[in-house]
């Protein structure tokens, strides 16, 4: 078995050694532990059970209810309530997934165990990590956890999103909402600009004398011409975007004073300050030894197994998967590929051919949506975009196109949440 796999797959001794204990356990069902109940992890858990109902699958997720980052900007804009972007795990349980609400705190790859915050240990035959992002506290001077309680990042959905929502509601008309944006890579490349759009929608309807200032560490951004066209059409004069070279790079934040200081020393005073800080893979990835010097996780693109630790699969925002963006859609399709690969490997078969896609809708205003899409495959261990596929919505189209993409964006959210958490509208 070891020799055959090594010859056929070139995986080497590590993978073969991992297969041995499973065989030694005889006919007992293999156990896959999935850490993280978001877009990647919950998808993997569901599709592992769906693809092989004999598998034992345990999903470890700290929270009993999961609030999605996608569509959280619509909550900020007043177009959605928080309940409509919150999902539970009952339907996954009904699909035979054992759901444990605890934090995964440590991984022993040699012993093949994961240690939980309640002190218990789970043994696994394969481990899937879908931990999302963590904030690099202190990477931006002045921005630590205490600062986030005053100037929310709201880049993990939940209480932070609610805090930003409430600060925007409490702001006086005529105030300035300042967004501080990081250099890439970060979760959801178009997300900050959708957020600016949704806040602009709220201001236009409730606080029309208010302004939005975006201080950006980037020179250009995702779907930029489409966003700027939409801002011009819907919110003329309300949103000012400052690129890095125009002194948009913020080097220090004073959260108590709600001030952002740029590289050239200009201090911007905000009435509401949203700092989207530098990020890295979720903490459990580092604890498991799957991150590299960048703080992100290199993976084998044909199955989303760690490039560093065989037997551990990693999904979603935590991974280095470019040209796939860090998006919920990407994480979902990576979860499906990883689930199929794990099922095949545990059965001693070759993993099926990887195939991925991504679609990111952004809402600029009610009835005004735009999108970016891509189709991806794996070439050896590398994710590649299929040539000629994908791209962004056209610039020169009428309102019907934008309206349709706004509706399809809502349709996408309903479908993917049904696919992952079994949420019914």
């Amino acid at each position: 078995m070891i020799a055959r796999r090594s010859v056929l797959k070139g995986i080497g001794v590590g993978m073969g050694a991992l297969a041995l204990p499973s065989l030694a356990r005889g006919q007992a069902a293999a156990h896959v532990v999935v850490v993280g109940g978001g877009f990647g992890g919950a998808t993997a858990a569901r599709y592992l059970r769906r693809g092989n109902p004999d598998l034992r699958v345990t999903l470890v997720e700290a929270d009993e209810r999961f609030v999605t980052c996608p569509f959280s900007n619509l909550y900020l804009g007043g177009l959605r309530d928080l309940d409509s972007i919150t999902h539970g795990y009952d339907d996954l349980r009904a699909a035979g997934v054992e759901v444990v609400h605890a934090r995964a705190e440590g991984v022993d790859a040699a012993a093949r165990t994961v240690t939980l915050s309640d002190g218990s240990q789970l043994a696994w035959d394969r481990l899937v990590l879908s931990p999302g992002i963590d904030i690099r506290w202190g990477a931006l001077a002045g921005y630590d956890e205490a600062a986030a309680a005053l100037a929310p990042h709201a880049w993990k959905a939940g209480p932070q999103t609610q805090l930003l929502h409430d600060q925007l509601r409490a702001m006086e008309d005529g105030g300035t909402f300042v967004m501080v944006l990081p250099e890439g890579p970060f979760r959801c490349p178009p997300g900050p600009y959708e957020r600016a759009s949704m806040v602009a929608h709220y201001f236009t309807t409730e606080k029309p004398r208010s302004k939005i200032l975006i201080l950006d560490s980037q020179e250009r951004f995702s779907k930029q011409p489409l966003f700027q066209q939409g801002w011009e059409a819907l919110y003329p004069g309300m949103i000012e975007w400052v690129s890095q070279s125009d002194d948009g790079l913020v080097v220090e934040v004073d959260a108590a004073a709600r001030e952002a200081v740029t590289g050239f020393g200009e201090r911007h005073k905000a009435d509401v300050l949203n700092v989207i800080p530098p990020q890295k893979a979720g903490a459990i990835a580092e604890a498991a030894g799957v991150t590299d010097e960048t703080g992100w996780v290199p993976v084998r693109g044909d199955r989303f197994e760690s490039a560093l630790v065989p037997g551990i699969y990693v999904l979603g925002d935590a991974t280095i998967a470019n040209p796939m963006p860090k998006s919920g859609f990407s994480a979902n399709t990576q979860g499906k590929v990883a689930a199929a690969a794990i099922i095949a490997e545990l059965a001693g078969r070759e993993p099926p051919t990887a195939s991925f896609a991504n679609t990111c809708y952004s809402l600029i205003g009610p009835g005004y949506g735009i999108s970016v899409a891509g189709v991806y495959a794996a070439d050896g261990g590398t994710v590649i975009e299929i040539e000629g596929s994908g791209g962004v919505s056209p610039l020169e189209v009428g309102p019907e196109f934008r309206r349709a993409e706004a509706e399809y964006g809502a349709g996408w959210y309903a479908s993917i949440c049904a696919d992952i958490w079994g949420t019914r509208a």
Partner: protein
Amino acid sequence: MIRLAVPLALAAGLAPAQAQEIDPADLAVMAGPCANCHGPDGRSPGAIPSIAGLPEGEAAAKMLAFRADEDPKATIMPRLMKGYGEAEIRALARWFAEVGQ
């Protein structure tokens, strides 16, 4: 890679029956992303059309028209369908036709 493994003759467009040469396990993975917009197994709960149970020929023709930029009402599907060869599109059409049965 499927795109390399599928014989060129197939990619050039032969009878739908030959689309089944794509391995079923590969096809299941290829169909995975469709659910994200068209719903689990192609049954949509929202504004995007369901595709489960669409007649195979009709679905293939529609997808090929998207790919060729021949549907003036299309939005995102032309960009997505350009990521798949004709044999893959015919296999996906069959997959979702059979899902509906």
